[in-house]
């Protein structure tokens, strides 16, 4: 039994591993392949695996079906702008939570943690009403400001700041560095790995986000890429799946590329909350 049993067991395991990988990777491959097919080929049953001829036409069609340059620019402005704001707001808060003892600290930190648990879908309605009272609906501000304070970011940075040895700060204080300066020029560089982790998390979240921009915007000039792409479905008459998939590649490919190169960082960023 031993040897043969073990090899065949190993073979079965490899087949199962390949099957699992296929279930999760093949749909993306299918998106990729579909985006190069002609429309008649898309509506062929049973479907072909590889495109008969590789069409770049679909990408041009998708790109020209709306102001996609504006969508991409808006997506970048929102994702980067949100990240910068979260950084500027989060660093001082995290520093205070990590390094000071003050009345109400535990209460305020606890309140931030509650904000971590409640998703934006639960309170979008009152936020919408409020933003519309401020005439901010259909502006990029409506996509950035509500995420200005990230509970997750504050939580992560606080952990990082707490791990900085007291001596480092004492030494800086002896040099007469101001607290403000210590925070930005000593603590922040020391927290760089955490900043990268959080940056990846926040950027991917806001790049991908569909719900919030869908609700908060009505006009093309402020729409982000996910909303623009979802409109391909409606605007392209029938369902031109090849064009729709080509459009989606614009959204998916950058993230998959980043994932390929920074896999470990990204997984760490997304799994972190569990610890």
């Amino acid at each position, binding site marked *: 039994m031993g040897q043969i049993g073990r090899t065949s067991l190993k073979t079965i395991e490899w087949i199962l591993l390949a099957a699992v*990988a296929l279930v*999760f990777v093949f749909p993306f491959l299918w998106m990729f392949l579909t985006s190069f097919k002609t429309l008649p080929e898309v509506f062929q049953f049973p479907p072909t695996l590889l495109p008969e001829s590789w069409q770049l036409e679909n990408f041009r069609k998708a790109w020209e079906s709306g102001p996609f340059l504006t969508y991409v620019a808006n997506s970048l402005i929102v994702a980067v702008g949100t990240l910068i704001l979260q950084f500027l707001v989060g660093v001082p808060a995290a520093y205070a939570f990590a390094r000071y003892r003050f009345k109400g600290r535990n209460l305020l930190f606890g309140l931030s943690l509650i904000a971590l*648990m*409640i998703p934006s879908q639960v309170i979008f309605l009152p936020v919408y009403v409020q933003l519309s009272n401020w005439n901010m609906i259909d502006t990029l501000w409506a996509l950035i400001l509500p995420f200005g304070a990230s509970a997750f970011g504050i939580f992560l940075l606080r952990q990082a700041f707490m791990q900085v040895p007291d001596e480092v700060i004492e030494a800086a204080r002896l040099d007469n560095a101001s607290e403000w300066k210590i925070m930005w020029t000593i603590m922040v560089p020391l927290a760089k790995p955490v900043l990268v982790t959080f940056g990846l998390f926040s950027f991917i979240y806001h790049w991908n986000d569909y719900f919030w921009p869908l609700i908060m915007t009505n006009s093309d000039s402020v729409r982000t890429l996910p909303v623009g792409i979802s409109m391909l479905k409606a605007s392209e008459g029938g369902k031109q799946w090849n064009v729709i998939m080509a459009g989606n590649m614009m959204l998916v490919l950058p993230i998959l590329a980043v*994932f390929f190169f920074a896999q470990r960082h990204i997984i760490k960023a997304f799994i972190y909350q569990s*610890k």
Partner: protein
Amino acid sequence: MRKAVASQELSGAISPAKEKKAAGAPFAWREKLRPYLYVTPAMIFFTLFFFFPIGYVIYLSFFDWTLLNLKAMDPVGLENYTNLVSDSDFHQVLGNTFVYTVSTVVLGIGLSFFLALWLNRKARIYGIIQAAVFSPHIISLVSVAMLWMWMMDTQYGLLNAILEVIGLPAYPWLTETGSAMVSLILVSIWKGLGYNTLVFIAGMQSIPRDIYEAAALDHSPWWRTLTRITIPMLSPTLFFLLVINTISSFQVFDTIYVMTQGGPVNSTNMLVFYIYEQGMDFYNGGAASAASVVLLILVGILTFFHFRFMGKRVHYQ
């Protein structure tokens, strides 16, 4: 742990006094103010876009109002809630949300637990498979929804082509009342499985090695090691995943909006989509805000248990 917290409080009370002496008094009050200044911006954002809206939606739920004219608000007491209680659509929405949540949470966590047991190994290939299983988690849900909608196309979709090759009849993925819900659950599990699996693996890797070594010395069979060591040691992870998965199931919207629009005949209409429809499409702000409060209470209960349990877990460490 409670003691540790208490002693922190004590030292917190003592240290400002020390600082005062060292600083020589005049600027001491400024130093005392400093942490409050540092947390103020964050607290302003949390208040404006989080705590105030929570109170505001509760307030709004006692009025009859529409997004078309926010100036005209009629106080109606509990009428929005009594309307929800008697609205059969809302009953269905709650039922759908319940079915969706229980299915995705139970199946998602169950499957990922076995996957984690299997994939929690050192060899490189397991790392690659872990990354592959995780990849849908970081992809925009709107792309995931459109991709699956295409694969679930009744006539030309990949899934029905595969079924035909195997010799099974075509499945009406998104076109019939029973099946559309199944399809949404499937997509949600597909997207979230990698996250759950990697969280389980992280939990498994934090179980101290020597416990397993002791079990091996005792010739403990694998199933006993599993039920007596692995599963109990994973209970915090399991609890975390239960809470996180349940909350994220409650907030399902994108897949519904893209793939089914709540149909066919309301069979996939769930809480957030219902709130969206009532508030944004039907201009029934009262119903939308009352339903928001219901959702808020559900998520609030889960959050409460989460923190209760997290507190205990720290306590026992």
